[in-house]
């Protein structure tokens, strides 16, 4: 069991962040009720450990043809707050295509759909906590949060980790995107160093010659509480 600390000040977005407009009517206004440590270390659900197929980790191989766009490798290590690898945990991703369009009925951005790209993948971490996907670089896309609002290019990630409290849904961004400063979703995280943790790093070692650029995205999940907390009760 790792000792899970309270969130570092500024390292997580607040519940209420009205610059993100759909937050205004959805964020709870009352404080959360803190659950004592000995009730929060419930092991995470074991779900989704179905066999992972080649198409699950390579989003460019889910159709007959190759999707349009810049092929990339996205890989990293999942660890807990003590730096220990989180092994055999489900990692799920979803994203828009290279033109900035999701394969979703409610996405009305006038950019083309790609018949060779669905935009979802999943894998489980290995014995060192590592995961790896092959995909195409998603495009930026507009949204209606404020005039001329655009989301920086991103890949959505979902992870379970070891306990109920380690559940994480987040977004991975790409280095040096000029849209960062204008994006209320990224800017909702108060600490600039914490925002940097969502920006992948170009990685020449992950880059495959004459084939695909590599981006590294390491993830830290909240750990379980330690037994010393239980001894106090």
């Amino acid at each position, binding site marked *: 069991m790792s000792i899970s600390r309270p969130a570092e000040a500024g390292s997580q977005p607040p519940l209420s962040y009205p610059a993100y407009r759909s937050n205004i*009517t959805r964020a*709870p206004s009352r404080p959360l009720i803190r659950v004592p440590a000995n009730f929060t270390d419930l092991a995470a659900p074991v779900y*989704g450990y179905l066999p992972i197929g080649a198409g699950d980790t390579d989003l460019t191989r889910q159709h007959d043809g190759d999707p349009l766009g810049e092929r990339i490798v996205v890989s990293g290590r999942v660890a807990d707050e003590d730096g220990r690898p989180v092994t055999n945990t489900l990692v799920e991703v979803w*994203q828009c295509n290279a033109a900035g369009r999701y394969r979703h009925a409610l996405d009305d951005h006038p950019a083309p759909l790609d018949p060779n790209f669905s935009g*979802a993948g999943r894998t489980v971490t290995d014995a060192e906590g590592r995961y790896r996907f092959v995909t195409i670089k998603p495009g930026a896309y507009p949204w209606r949060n404020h005039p001329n609002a655009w989301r920086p290019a991103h890949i959505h990630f979902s992870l379970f980790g070891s306990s109920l409290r380690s559940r994480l849904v*987040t*977004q991975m961004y790409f280095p040096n995107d000029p849209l960062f400063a204008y994006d209320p979703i990224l800017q909702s995280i108060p600490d600039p160093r914490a925002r940097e943790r*969502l920006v992948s790093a170009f990685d020449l070692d992950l880059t495959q010659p004459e084939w695909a650029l590599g981006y590294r995205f390491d993830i830290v999940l909240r750990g379980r509480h330690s037994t010393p907390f239980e001894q106090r009760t």
Partner: protein
Amino acid sequence: MTGTAADRSIATPSQTVGPFFEVWLRSHHALGVLAGPETRGERLRLRVVVVDGDGAVVPDCLIEIYQADHDGEYGRESFSGFGRLPTGADGACEFETIRPGAVRSAAGIVQAPHVNVCLFARGLLRHLYTRVYFPDDPHLDADPILALVPPDRKHTLIAAPVGEGASVPRTFERVIRLQGDDETVFFDL
């Protein structure tokens, strides 16, 4: 840069699930049926409805549930206890499951039968944790988590039976009010 070793010990920030998560669920199986023919325990339907601060239903939530089995045990091979569904145009989703047993912690503390809920939505930068308890359960009064909740808010955690008691399986409904008067209790784990 992805940061120094010291940085890596701080949890990665959460971001919203956004409006398009069905791209993901579509491929990876939403899961609304938790109980198979072999599962022991009282069958029930659990309907979750989500309402925003304006009183409007929320049609683009992702609801995950996680519960113990009939004996109050989590994560047994015979019953994973995990489900996830998107809410529909009516702001609702419905799970086919069983009534969980009371859960006994290692220290011997008994929690009333409950379902853990993890709620994700466009507009929420972090997911929300809440619980569903069942009405008229003899363990409710002694539940250590309900004991943390102010008396005038406890009802926000307790499901209501729907329809006639005689119908099988019974349906229980839990309305989650994200904000405003009668706001649901959410937990910090």
